[in-house]
């Protein structure tokens, strides 16, 4: 399975700055060129305090196809320090005998609206769709995030350690998505996954044409596609203007910087390979069209989201290196979801394409392991015999790859962030629950210690505060 790798936007930003600094020292001294800060809302995430922790005697799925039957994992200073069968603990380590229990990488949900469509679902909390124009690439989901959404803590109890928070799907281009650590604190920046590239939400099909059909269009699928193409054409033009500006400046001319356009800046970021497209798309034919739009404008779609018909074109998706982020069994709530089948995920996997289990739901995000379990069992029943160890890629490694954070997390490998879940039993089961959830080695959730459970501001002093949720 081929999955594109993405350069960190932050890294690109820094390198761009160095390069430009070099320019300004060229033979014809001019005003320094305009440098656009690509990270104006930098992450202020700090891992919580952790203690060295050794978990022994567990079944380990490493998230990249490996399984250790009687394994151990050692987490030190927020990183995975060792993984194997017999490990010894440092003197100050907490040692947990996990007999009968399982360890996996933390679950990463590529599709969540927590914080942008928070509970309670009042109109005041409806901050996910800037449904005022079909192309709103200029809006950023992180500016809507309410870190007090109680849903974050529910997802934590389900073993979710990172997630992408996206704008909704009303628009052709909905805006920037952001990847966060599931450690909500006082501001959105406190959650931002350090170094993660931005995503950009796009949407196929019914939603944009329904929302804009009576508001000036698009009102059809062909109108949708015209809208994407015009947006990309405008972005190409914008990118050329800036490229020309920097080239002229380097050539010693005294060019005037183009006017910044926040909408086109995000789209140009995609064309530059710094921002990853995540596209809500249900039907096989819609996805087929978008693969050609992708080629026409030379960008990469990281993942089709929802993708209920990916099973019809799994070979095409494999060829084009595009992931599918899917539910196990949602179907029928709208026409473009009518052909959903339960074997979608394993069929995509079996075709050699990148399969991801996603939620798009504050309920589903709490039980993504069960969604994977259903898909795994449904595949097995029709002869797609995928090991549990391989199937866990749907929950951690593939999401991490599609978000551009696989170097840091998404598998249990030495040196990676210690984003780890200790399950009460085989997680491919209704009855398995996370016992411990570690984020950067810190024990973020301990099912056995109710006094330690996180409670959002909203739930303080309300009925049910601190209850088992």
């Amino acid at each position, binding site marked *: 399975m081929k999955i594109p790798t993405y350069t960190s936007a932050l890294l690109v930003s820094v390198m761009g700055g160095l390069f430009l600094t070099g320019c300004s020292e060229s033979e014809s001294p001019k005003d320094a060129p305009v440098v656009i800060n690509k990270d104006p809302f930098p992450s202020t995430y700090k891992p919580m305090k952790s203690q060295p922790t050794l978990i022994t005697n567990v079944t380990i799925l490493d998230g990249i196809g490996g399984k250790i039957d009687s394994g151990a994992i050692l987490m030190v200073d927020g990183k995975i320090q060792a993984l194997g069968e017999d490990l010894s603990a440092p003197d100050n380590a907490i040692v947990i005998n996990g007999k009968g229990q399982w360890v996996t990488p933390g679950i990463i949900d590529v599709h969540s609206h927590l914080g942008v469509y928070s509970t309670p679902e009042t109109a005041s909390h409806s901050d996910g769709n800037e449904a005022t124009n079909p192309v709103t690439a200029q809006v950023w989901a992180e500016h809507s995030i309410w870190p007090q959404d109680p849903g974050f803590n529910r997802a934590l109890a389900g073993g979710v350690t990172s997630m992408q928070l996206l704008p909704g799907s009303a628009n052709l281009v909905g805006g920037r998505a952001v990847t966060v650590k599931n450690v909500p604190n006082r501001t959105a920046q406190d959650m931002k996954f350090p170094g993660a590239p931005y995503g950009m939400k796009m949407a196929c099909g*019914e939603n944009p044409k329904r929302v804009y059909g009576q508001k000036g269009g698009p009102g059809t699928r062909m109108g949708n596609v015209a809208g994407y193409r015009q947006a990309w054409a405008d972005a190409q033009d914008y990118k050329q203007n800036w490229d020309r500006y920097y080239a002229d400046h380097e050539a010693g001319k005294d060019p005037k910087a183009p006017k910044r356009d926040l909408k086109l800046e995000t789209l140009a970021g995609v064309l530059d390979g710094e921002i990853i497209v995540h596209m809500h798309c249900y039907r096989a034919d819609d996805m087929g069209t978008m693969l050609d739009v992708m080629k026409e404008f030379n960008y990469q779609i990281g993942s089709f989201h929802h993708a209920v018909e990916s099973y019809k074109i799994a070979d095409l998706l494999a060829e084009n290196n595009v992931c599918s982020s899917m539910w196990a069994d949602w179907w029928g709530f709208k026409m473009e979801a009518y052909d959903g089948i*339960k074997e979608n995920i394993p069929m995509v996997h079996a075709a050699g394409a990148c399969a991801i289990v996603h939620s798009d739901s504050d309920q589903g995000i709490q039980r993504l392991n069960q969604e994977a379990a259903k898909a795994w069992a449904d595949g097995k029943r029709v002869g797609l015999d995928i090991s549990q160890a391989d199937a866990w890629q749907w929950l951690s490694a593939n999401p991490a790859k599609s978000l551009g954070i696989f170097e840091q997390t998404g598998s249990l490998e030495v040196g990676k962030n210690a984003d780890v879940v200790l399950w009460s039993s085989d997680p491919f089961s209704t009855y398995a629950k996370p016992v411990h959830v570690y984020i950067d080695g810190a024990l973020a959730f301990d099912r056995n210690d109710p006094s330690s459970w996180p409670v959002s501001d909203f739930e303080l002093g309300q009925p049910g505060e601190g209850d*088992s949720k």
Partner: protein
Amino acid sequence: MRTLLKLATSLAGLVCLPVMAANIAIINATVHTMSDQGSVQNATVLIKDGKIQQVMSPTPALAGYQVIDAKGKVVTPGLFGAYTSLGLVEVGASAGTVDSRSEATAISHTGAALDVSYAVNPASSLMAISRVEGITSAATSMANTSQLFRGQGAIISLADNTDPILKGTAFVTTGVDNNGADDTGGSRASLWVSLEQALAEADYALGKTFTPQTDWHGITSVADAQALAGVVKGEVPLLIEAHRQADLLQIIALKKRRPTLKIVILKATEGWKVAKQLAQANIAVILNPESNLPYEFDQLAATLQNAARLHEAGVTVAIGMNTHNIRLAKQHAGNAVSHGLPWDAGLAALTINPAKIYGVSESIGSIETGKRADVVIWSGDPLEVTHNAEMVLINGEITDMSSRQSKLRDRYLKVATDKTVHYQRP
């Protein structure tokens, strides 16, 4: 003649079984009868003329029975979709046949008169898609009328036939939650007075004859008042959607004022806070045990423990509120079990409890002598997400295990390239 059909482990094997009305013996099974007989190991279920004849162990002589060997399998009553709109909706949003919503009509001022019995479509694709997952019957209701009542619901069978109604005008639904208040005056202060008035008008209409000339100035239409007759007489369950403690206490107070009402609460998100009072008032609950977020300010105390705590207090709990994916009710029940509900109670919440709630437990909901033979053979624990229905019998007949979805799957599992997909019929 005795025919021995081994229960094949592959789905393909099952699909090939002949479908015929016959006397059937399911043998070697672990049977959860959901009757007083409890769970029986190595059991034989005898089915005759579409009814359960007997559940017994060990296996008797089986002349004249088609034998199904369910060794290693689990057998349960067919699952009962506790609250659905099955047969009333094909595709909900912006498409399809939708009889689960309505707008105001001349016949009804409050929604009570609307009757889904006329609207159920047994050929809906949702029927087979749900049936192959072990759902054999369901309560079906309108989902939204924007009025005080959501009409009269029906109990349906998911058998592949043309007469799905097991019991018409089986229940009436209303809501006293935030949505209910929105539909009737925007406040609980107007909603509750309207509800009381509607019931009072139904009392008044009992036994009266109406003609188009009859003077009638109720807030309900005559048809509404007549439709509520069964409710005020206690013959037809009144389902009331409610979440918060205060609203649940209002419902308990209503029950005290009108002891004849047969009240069932939908959702009861904060039900655990008044569990004992609900049990004392003999009020059952249909809920989604996974609902653990404060979606509205009337659901702040939502918890995954709700089903377990209600059951512990003695409340009859049913699980299964969905339509397209009512097949996930078993997963919902499994998660309730994972959070404290005893396993037997989890299965009861999918079978005998909804049957009792709707007054149809004489005929369905358990595997018991004389009842309809709605029976499912599972690959293992039905509450486990990795197990599935392998054979579904309705009214004693083995049903076809294919659906629109299985055909789509089979078409695309192996796509031949010499012809376009339209020519490839699984």
